[in-house]
């Protein structure tokens, strides 16, 4: 199995060692199991007394990467495994299953290590640095980059209310009530002081984005509710950071003054706005960089990832809110980067982000399970039970109370059903655990950790499992699956302009007015700086339309319908009409032409290869790619066919000539197809092609 090169190497080594040369050779062998004394020994013994180790075992050398890879592999195999058991994965959300796996793995490791001397170190725990620096950013970046901006900005007020006021309410309510509980004689918790309780409250009060994502993604709820809960979980990071640091400082200092409270408020603004600012700066710089990547397309995705990660780390340096910085960076960068980068880079970015965030999420839940088994636990019935109950109660009260106030300002009010889902979706997760882990080692820490883990388990298992049937039961609106149509885009823009105009007539500087101003500013100044080439002046409608057409053309090509392409000879049989007008093919920009050409060429070649065993039923289409399903696609083809028939009135057969022109332009020879295809299908495909090329012009 060893390649010739390796054999030569071995031979060389053997020869050189036989000569028994100096220490230099020993080092080049790279045999690090030899300690310096042993090396000297072997030199002194000139001719080695023991045989040359042909096969040696050296694990320490690769221990760390090996373990990491093994963990990740295990996590992903588990993920695969769940989908093989359909019944279970339908009832139990993935996060629960992963935690259970983590528990099992942790149990196994602990059992294996129970006789070893050093029990703690070999059970890997979700240590804070690992979590905050490596596992959390990919998930947040994925969420922030693909955040539905329109819904987010429309509901920003509501989200902020829930995030800021809601979290504050939760923290103080839980903290205060727990202090009250601790005063009960029977609980033996008399030594837990108010500040510690408040600290605990601030840790446990925050809704966790990872858990929310994990659960909400599977239930496909409508966008409004999704963005409310998810947006809240993202934006409450600033509050959590401030409260946590505040109470931690105070619990050391011991007393709180009014100045401290005031400083805390200022700190909140600094943390949140500073985080956003840093994110915006990195985002703009990233967008600017992407302007120049024309000649190095391969590294484009890396820029997106690195700038975002740097934004996160820079914010963490100053103890600002890293999550908000990451979100701001992604949001700021996205429109400009997407206009600049190639289609392949866009796909790469999308899939890499999804991949990383998926791996991170899996690892987080498994580690949660493992850490539960590993960590020392102090179980105090009163404390834990009351924590769980108070979390639920405070969440419900908070949501109901805030909705009452918020509904006075909203156009579309939140119904009771919405409120229930928002309250029920307040899941706690790994962030709470990691923050708890960060606490200084007092004897209360273990008790807190136990309570935190219990709450996390409760929310993830009980609430996570029951939310799906509840959603069905309450008939909550689900997410609409279809992509935006050109009609919706046009009419929405139309309505935007209309509303802006009406607002101006009323003299009312509302939502639309500022949005319009921002768009105008964006169009005149920002786009010119950050987008390269002529895309900078392209109106939004046109780029939307082009994207849509590109997507449809690629769907058509990938499904192999272009196998119906006629041969050149049969095209000559088509009689051109007499009233043919010389239609000039409208010129398209060189870059666009190149892109289209490349894309068509690569896809058409693929088609040619696939043609050997082509039948529509054999065609392998990844059902998750582009939301494509056979039924939908057939519907689309019918539509396209209908459209082609309709456009026969607009485009006459002359299109076939332009098609021919295009074909010769591309230096292509179409594969000859068997005569089993009927003539009209050829015509249809021909016209479809003509239409597509026409669109691209």
């Amino acid at each position, binding site marked *: 199995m060893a390649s010739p090169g390796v054999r030569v190497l071995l031979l060389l080594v053997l020869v050189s060692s036989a000569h028994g040369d100096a220490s230099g050779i020993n080092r080049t062998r790279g045999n690090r199991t030899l300690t310096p004394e042993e090396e000297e020994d072997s030199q002194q013994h000139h001719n080695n007394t023991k045989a040359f180790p042909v096969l040696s075992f050296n694990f320490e050398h690769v221990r760390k990467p090996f373990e990491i890879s093994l963990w990740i592999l295990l996590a992903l195999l588990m993920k695969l495994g769940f989908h093989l058991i359909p019944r279970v994965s339908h009832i139990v959300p993935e996060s629960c299953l992963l935690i259970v796996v983590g528990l099992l793995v942790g149990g196994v490791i602990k059992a294996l290590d129970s006789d070893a001397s050093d029990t703690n170190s070999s059970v890997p725990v979700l240590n804070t640095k690992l979590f905050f620096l490596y596992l959390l950013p990919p998930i947040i970046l994925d969420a922030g980059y693909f955040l539905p901006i329109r819904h987010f900005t429309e509901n920003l007020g509501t989200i902020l209310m829930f995030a800021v006021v809601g979290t504050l309410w939760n923290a103080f309510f839980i903290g205060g009530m727990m202090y009250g509980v601790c005063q009960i004689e029977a609980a033996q918790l008399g030594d837990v002081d108010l500040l510690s309780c408040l600290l605990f409250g601030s840790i446990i009060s925050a809704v966790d984005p990872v858990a929310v994502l994990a659960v909400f993604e599977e239930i496909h709820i409508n966008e409004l509710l999704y963005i409310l809960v998810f947006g809240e979980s993202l934006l409450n990071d600033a509050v959590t950071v401030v409260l946590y640091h505040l109470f931690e400082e105070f619990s050391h200092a011991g007393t709180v003054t009014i100045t401290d409270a005031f400083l805390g408020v200022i700190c909140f603004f600094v943390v949140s706005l500073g985080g956003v600012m840093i994110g915006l700066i990195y985002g703009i710089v990233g967008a600017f960089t992407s302007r120049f990547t024309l000649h190095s397309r391969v590294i484009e995705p890396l820029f997106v990832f690195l700038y975002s990660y740097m934004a996160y780390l820079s914010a963490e340096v100053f103890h600002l809110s890293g999550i908000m910085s990451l979100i701001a960076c992604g949001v700021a960068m996205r429109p400009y980067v997407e206009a600049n980068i190639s289609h392949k880079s866009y796909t790469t970015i999308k899939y890499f982000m999804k991949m990383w965030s998926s791996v991170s999420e899996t690892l987080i839940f498994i580690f949660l399970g493992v850490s539960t088994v590993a960590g020392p636990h102090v179980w105090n019935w009163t404390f834990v039970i009351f924590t769980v109950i108070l979390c639920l109660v405070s969440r419900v009260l908070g949501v109901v109370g805030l909705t009452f106030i918020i509904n006075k300002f909203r156009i579309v009010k939140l119904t009771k059903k919405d409120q229930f889902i928002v309250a029920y979706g307040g899941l706690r997760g790994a962030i709470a655990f990691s923050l708890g882990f960060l606490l200084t080692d007092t004897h209360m820490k273990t008790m807190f950790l136990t309570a935190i883990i219990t709450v996390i388990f409760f929310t993830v298992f009980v609430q996570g499992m029951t939310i799906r049937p509840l959603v069905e039961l309450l008939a909550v609106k689900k997410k609409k699956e279809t992509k935006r149509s050109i*009609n919706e885009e*046009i009419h929405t823009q*139309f309505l935007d302009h209309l509303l802006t105009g*009406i607002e*101006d007539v009323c003299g009312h500087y509302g939502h*639309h007015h500022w949005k319009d101003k921002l768009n105008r500013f964006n169009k005149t100044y920002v786009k010119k700086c950050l987008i390269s080439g002529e895309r900078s002046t392209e109106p939004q*409608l*046109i780029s939307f339309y082009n994207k849509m057409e590109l997507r449809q053309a690629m769907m058509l090509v990938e499904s192999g319908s272009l196998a119906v392409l006629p041969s050149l000879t049969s095209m000559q049989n088509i009689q051109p009409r007499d009233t043919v007008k010389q239609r000039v093919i409208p010129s398209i920009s060189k870059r666009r032409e190149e892109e289209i050409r490349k894309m068509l060429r690569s896809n058409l070649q693929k088609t040619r290869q696939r043609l050997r065993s082509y039948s529509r039923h054999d065609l392998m289409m990844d059902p998750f790619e582009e939301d494509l399903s056979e039924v939908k696609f057939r519907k689309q083809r019918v539509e396209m066919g209908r459209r082609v028939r309709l456009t026969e009135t607009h485009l006459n057969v002359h299109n076939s000539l332009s098609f021919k022109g295009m074909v010769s332009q591309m230096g292509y020879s179409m594969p000859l197809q068997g005569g089993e295809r009927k003539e009209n299908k050829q015509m249809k495909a021909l016209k479809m092609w003509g239409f597509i090329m026409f669109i691209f012009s």
Partner: protein
Amino acid sequence: MGSRASTLLREEEIEEIKKETGFSHSQITRLYSRFTSLDKGENGTLSREDFQRIPELAINPLGDRIINAFFPEGEDQVNFRGFMRTLAHFRPIEDNEKNKNPPTSEPLNSRTNKLLFAFRLYDLDRDDKISRDELLQVLRMMVGVNISDEQLGSIADRTIQEADTNGDNSISFSEFIKVLEKVDVEQKMSIRFLH
């Protein structure tokens, strides 16, 4: 300043406008002060020039059409009543209104009436159909001058094909409603007036 006694708002008028449009007292007075500030001629009506004096409306792509929507058929002046009637389309739909027994005529700010207002802005010749040309005009206004006619034409064609269900190559009002059924029109076409 001239005698403006005849143009001051009387209580009966306020009541009538309230009944017709559903605005509250404070909203009506606030909008009346806006009306008078726009009315430079001080004759109790607004002309097209008064609207065109609003700076933001001049740069709005749909500015002219919006102005036209305020003026009833063939007239050049609009009084406060007409002003309010047009603005009533943009009042947010209240929850309690949904539960009330529907009045004899549908309130001006119902979803259908909002969409009808938007539809009329497309459909200039009032034939209850958005033809390809009308659509092209709107697209040209929104997109600017840099895009070629052919590109716009293909977008218009695509739009009509997507929406057209009865094959008449234009968008009727019912087709218009159907296309926008996923868009949250109640939120999109409402302005949060001060309470």
